[in-house]
């Protein structure tokens, strides 16, 4: 058998073939593609929440006055609006992530593949459990 070690390559140009260009706006053509792009963009908002958390920790380390200033900054209507949009994207990111988890996780139990439902369910259950623990901490204090 012939060894084909050459890397994958693009089919060479042929003058008589018709080739269409991919539009810059390809992601607007179909809802699944738009959803994919929104999901990719959501990473920017996830990063924003990380920045907010870091700022919060910095304010906390600088004492109660700095923390009060941080809280006032959080109450700025623009920041509230930005954080609401961010929350939407973070939830969107999490939900779509949980829903695709079974594609990446091929877990086998007693020789059979664990059904998608259980993998998605386990992800949501873990999310709920962590949220409950956090809520308990917040309510307690």
């Amino acid at each position, binding site marked *: *058998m012939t060894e*084909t070690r*050459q*890397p*994958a*390559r*693009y*089919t060479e140009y*042929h003058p*008589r*073939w*018709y*080739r*269409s260009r*991919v539009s810059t706006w*390809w*992601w607007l*053509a*179909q809802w*699944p*593609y738009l959803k*994919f792009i929104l999901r*990719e963009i959501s990473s920017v908002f996830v990063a924003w929440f990380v920045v907010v958390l870091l700022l919060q920790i910095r304010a906390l380390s600088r004492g109660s006055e700095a923390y009060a200033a941080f809280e006032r900054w959080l109450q700025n209507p623009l920041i509230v609006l930005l954080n609401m949009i961010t929350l939407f994207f973070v939830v969107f990111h999490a939900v779509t992530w949980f829903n*695709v988890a*079974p*594609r*990446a*996780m*091929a877990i*086998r139990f007693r*020789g*059979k*593949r664990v059904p998608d439902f259980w993998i998605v369910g386990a992800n949501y259950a873990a999310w709920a459990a962590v949220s409950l623990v956090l809520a308990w901490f917040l309510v307690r204090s």
Partner: protein
Amino acid sequence: MAETISLEVFRYSPERDAEPSFQRYDVPLRKDWVVLDALNYIKDKVDGSLTFRWSCRMGICGSCGMMVNGEPKLTCATFLSNYAREQGPLRVQPLRYFPVIRDLVVEITDFMTKLQSVKPWLIRGKEKPISEGEYLQTPEQLDRYKQFSMCINCVLCYSACPVYGLDPVFIGPAAIALAQRYNMDSRDEGAHERMDILAQHEGIWGCTFVGECTKVCPKHVDPAGAIQQYKLTATIERFKSFLMPRGAK
């Protein structure tokens, strides 16, 4: 009852046309007809010059893939009646992201080269003599790769993949799924050879997990799953070779 359905078919003649165009045909709307039946009706009764590929008309040869109303479909498994209520004619175009040779026929050498590059066959370090009998496999071992072995090379997944459209060096969904079909086979020993091709940027890491390849697959192969699972395998292997430079291979 509307007895006919209109089709708007992509036409391109390399000898005559500088640009492709659409031609409209009216065909009988029969409950048991698929898009391929309509195309055959056009070719037999209306316009013999219409060119398209087909063979088995039962979803196993993988040659009649086309874009039907913008979605990659096997035309032998896409019923006209599903589109009868839609506004406007049914649009039939050649599979997206491939060069068009004529009308609905696309050039798939690119896919064939990529498929071969992942070595989609059983690789053995050492063949055992025939006298020792066949390589046995349990139903469980078969089950690990069976889903990926259902691929019929219809390349609908490539037409669903914007990564392939934008970056044609990407090895693509079907080739990676078929590489996994052999990687997961208990009789195969070629996983390391395939890794050189798969674990590069043009391989699995080109995939951004749009997931449409899995949705359009007529054989439920789940190429997106195969790619994500292989990303995990490749990452584990990379860490192994990092921690145990000699022991891993």
